[in-house]
């Protein structure tokens, strides 16, 4: 093999702590290397051209680039060598930036290590084989998981683009968190007025199939050909027949059911429709609270239902859907703020969350838009807002900024004044983060036009004093202690990954960070992709986001899906396992351990042999490390390739 080695300076990113010229000089002494040089920016156009030229001039048939992580530019350089007529698998990368130059300043040690990494790469390259992808057809349907605003946007964009869309929503209505909001910042327009029509569009779009009150049970397959098992949870109501008239809910005698839609500031009925604009507008029974389901007595709803759609015997149902791509838009949940004992840890009824307050402000909420103290139903006069509850707080394990609380707090302060002109709002904040179009102007309005008293500092304690709550905090600008006698305290509770996000990630085989937020393919360049082909992200499941960003991501994810589906066939990754039929003894251990069922037994001239189905194989290599005689080899990570790297590093 004739190998060319290109050692990248990456400007000063590598060159500052690695002597790239020395690395290139050392590489010239390696077996097979016939050309080695150091270049300023190998990934730039002149840098790539240099590779192409060298391949032609020196007749190279293998290339090593020592630069950044292959996760960054392997694809780039594979295309480069392909452009020069080489098979793209006759290329190896040595990661001398993330794994060398950026993690130490010892130039001698770094240079030495870089030489080692280049040698490993070139030794492996000598064992590389040209690989050729296979084409396979794709199923141009897309699954959207989560019916919040991001999911709705992605679904509508895909559906309008002509794709068949399957949407799965965990709760009994779509709309997500946005549906619970009264108004939106910075325009203070009505949330349900802008979201409502979009929800209706989802329900009515001929290309969209909606499974509400359903969850993802199982995901199998791969990009282009996923097979999804959806669990339709039992609602005890035949939704095909239910008209959403609401008589059942009216007559239901069980009045103490948890009202999750209203953030538990009120109770609902055991049979309920979450809110008037729910999509689908169908009733469901919460078995926990239904006397009929618990004790076999009652049956009022069945009696009053005009369409006879109550079915107490209903069971969970499983449906299989085949799709080619998946968009996850599972959103966020609120941090459990009761760990803050200094805010009462949940003992004081008049300390509420921002989302509870939102329901209180909403004209369609349980208080009909009237602000009332939960303890005594009185109108509050002094309202204290505390920001960064479960955000930017290492002590509760939430060091990140939720990002949108500053804005909604300002909005809620403004709305408070609108609702109760005689009231006074106080906002305890750490910093105001109002970066966005018209955002800073909005917070200023809250301060200047609505007389909100913004106090920069944390609250150290809330305790009851008479029928008021004494809120004590620091005013760090004034350098004093502040005490406010409040009637109501609203906590701007931070966002965290939605419950069950990590479980879903395991099914999707995508990564998530330590807070449960999904990892994007690249923090800058692949914001809606994941490292699993065919799985995309939209909205707050990737990290806290406000409505405009969530919507933008929904559209971006849809664009990615439409792009993927613009081809009729996809190329399979040829980095899959193959069986050396001469060496295989048909013991079946690979078949037993393959997680994808990609290996099947075949009869070969009367002998049992293993056979890999290339399009199903995902290239994990478990079979290769299982096969005792090395008959199954994962292409591009064969035993000999890995051994050559080991041997390049360790030779007695």
């Amino acid at each position, binding site marked *: 093999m004739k190998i060319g080695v290109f050692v990248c300076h990456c400007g000063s990113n590598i060159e500052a702590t690695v002597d790239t010229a020395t690395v290139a000089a050392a590489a010239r002494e390696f077996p097979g290397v016939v050309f080695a040089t150091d270049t300023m920016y190998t990934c730039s156009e002149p840098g790539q051209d240099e590779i192409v030229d060298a391949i032609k001039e020196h007749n190279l048939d293998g290339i090593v680039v020592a630069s950044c992580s292959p996760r960054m530019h392997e694809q780039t350089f594979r295309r480069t060598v392909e452009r020069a007529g080489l098979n793209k698998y006759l290329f190896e990368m040595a990661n001398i930036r993330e794994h060398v130059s950026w993690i130490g300043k010892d130039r001698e040690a770094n240079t030495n290590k870089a030489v080692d990494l280049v040698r490993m790469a070139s030794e492996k390259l000598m064992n590389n084989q040209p690989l050729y992808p296979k084409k396979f057809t794709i199923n141009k349907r897309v699954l959207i998981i989560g019916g919040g605003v991001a999911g709705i946007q992605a679904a509508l964009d895909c559906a309008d683009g002509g794709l068949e869309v399957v949407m799965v929503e965990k709760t009994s209505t779509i709309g997500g968190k946005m549906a619970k909001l009264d108004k939106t910042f910075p325009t203070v327009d009505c949330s349900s007025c802008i979201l409502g029509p979009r929800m209706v569009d989802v329900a009515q779009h001929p290309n969209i199939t909606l499974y509400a009150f359903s969850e993802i049970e199982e995901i199998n397959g791969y990009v282009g050909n996923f097979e999804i098992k959806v669990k339709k949870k039992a609602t005890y109501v035949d939704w095909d027949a239910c008209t959403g008239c609401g008589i059942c809910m009216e007559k239901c005698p069980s009045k103490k059911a948890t009202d999750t839609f209203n953030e538990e500031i009120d109770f609902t009925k055991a049979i309920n429709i979450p809110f008037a604009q729910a999509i689908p507008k169908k009733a469901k029974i919460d078995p926990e609270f239904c006397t009929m389901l618990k004790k076999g007595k009652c049956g009022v709803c069945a009696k009053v239902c005009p369409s006879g759609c109550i079915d107490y015997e209903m069971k969970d149902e499983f449906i299989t859907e085949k799709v080619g791509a998946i968009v996850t838009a599972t959103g966020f949940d609120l941090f459990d703020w009761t760990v803050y*004992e*200094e805010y009462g*840890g949940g003992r004081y009824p008049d300390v509420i969350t921002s989302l509870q307050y939102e329901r209180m402000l909403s004209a369609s909420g349980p208080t009909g838009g009237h602000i009332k103290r939960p303890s005594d139903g009185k109108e509050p006069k002094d309202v204290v807002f505390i920001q960064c509850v479960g955000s930017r707080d290492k002590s509760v394990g939430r060091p990140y900024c939720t990002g949108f609380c500053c804005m909604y707090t300002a909005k809620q302060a403004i709305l408070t004044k609108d609702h109760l002109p005689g009231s006074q709002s106080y906002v305890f904040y750490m910093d105001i983060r109002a970066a966005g179009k018209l955002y800073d102007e909005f917070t200023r309005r809250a301060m200047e036009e609505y007389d909100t008293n913004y106090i920069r500092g944390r609250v150290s*304690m809330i*305790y009851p004093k*008479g029928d008021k709550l004494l809120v004590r905090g620091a005013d760090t600008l004034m350098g004093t202690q502040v005490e406010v006698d409040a009637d109501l305290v609203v906590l701007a509770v931070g966002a965290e990954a939605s419950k069950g996000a990590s479980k879903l990630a395991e099914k999707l085989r995508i990564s998530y960070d330590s807070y449960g937020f999904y990892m994007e393919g690249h923090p800058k360049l692949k914001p809606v992709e994941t490292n699993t082909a065919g799985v995309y992200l939209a909205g707050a499941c990737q990290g806290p986001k406000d409505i405009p960003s969530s919507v933008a991501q929904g559209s971006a994810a849809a664009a990615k899906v439409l792009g993927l589906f613009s081809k009729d066939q996809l190329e399979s990754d040829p980095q899959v396992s193959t069986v050396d039929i001469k060496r295989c003894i048909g013991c079946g251990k690979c078949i037993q351990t393959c997680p994808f069922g990609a290996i099947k037994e075949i009869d070969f001239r009367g002998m049992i042999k293993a056979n890999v189905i290339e399009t199903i194989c995902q290239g994990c290599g478990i079979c290769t490390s299982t096969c005792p005689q090395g008959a199954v080899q994962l292409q591009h990570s064969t035993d000999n390739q890995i051994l050559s790297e080991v041997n390049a590093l360790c030779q007695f």
Partner: protein
Amino acid sequence: MNTSLNYAYYPGCSSTGTSVEYDMSSRAICAALGIQLQDVPDWSCCGSTPAHTVDHSLSSALSARNLDQVASMGLDSCITPCPSCLANLKTAKHKMQDENFRDKVNKLLEKPANTQVETKSVLQILVEDYGIENIKKKVVKPLTGLVVGAYYGCILNRPAELMQFDSREHPMAMDNIMEALGATVVPFPLKVECCGASFGIPRKDVVMRLSGKLLDTAQEIGALALVTACPLCQMNLDMRQSQINRANGTKHNIPIFYFTQLLGLALGLTEKELGMDKLCVSPRTLLNSIAKEEQIKEKAA
């Protein structure tokens, strides 16, 4: 119940002076509950405020020496009633894990100190090792009719990472014990507020303000008495109560007990054994009323 609870006991300096009744009652209740205490031989000051404001290694050296003394007793845990001592002993153990600091401290001592010993408060072992349920079984004179608030002070459970006991913001250990003793416990919202503590000498006005607020709150919530677990808190609220009244124009007359005293009372110990006579705000009327309530109940039965 663990029948063989056995601890090294570190009384701390205040037990020989201002909080002698805390020491007396702590020893008395342990004896009554069958918890064995062995005094740390030749104990010295823990290195509290005066020392640690000057030099951390000096402060830790004092504590390290005491911990070493405990280790030499062959015991692996030590208890103390005083939160200041507790904080210092625990801090020393924690800081001594750092090699450089350890060397610095050991240089100050005659011999390198073994600081592996665990220190706990008397309150902590009562709750965790002995168990409130077991205490309840030993109650012979319930504190019926006593309306009490539990005041923990600011250092008993702080910093939480070091103390590893109860909640830093909303502790319940004393509340639960008092309830087990038959008292009526009213939630005291300022249970972890500062009393002014060591400002007692240089800035008396601070104490007047902070401790005054505590007494005001106690009155507001209807507490007839407060229980504490800290000699400094007790001193500020009890000894200085008349000064506070004078400064703030209030008329508080709220007895401030160590929780061990009330516990002892419920266990049937005498007022003398518990040092009730050492309190500045006389608990007499209150104690009598408890006795009376009890008599009424007995009669009714």
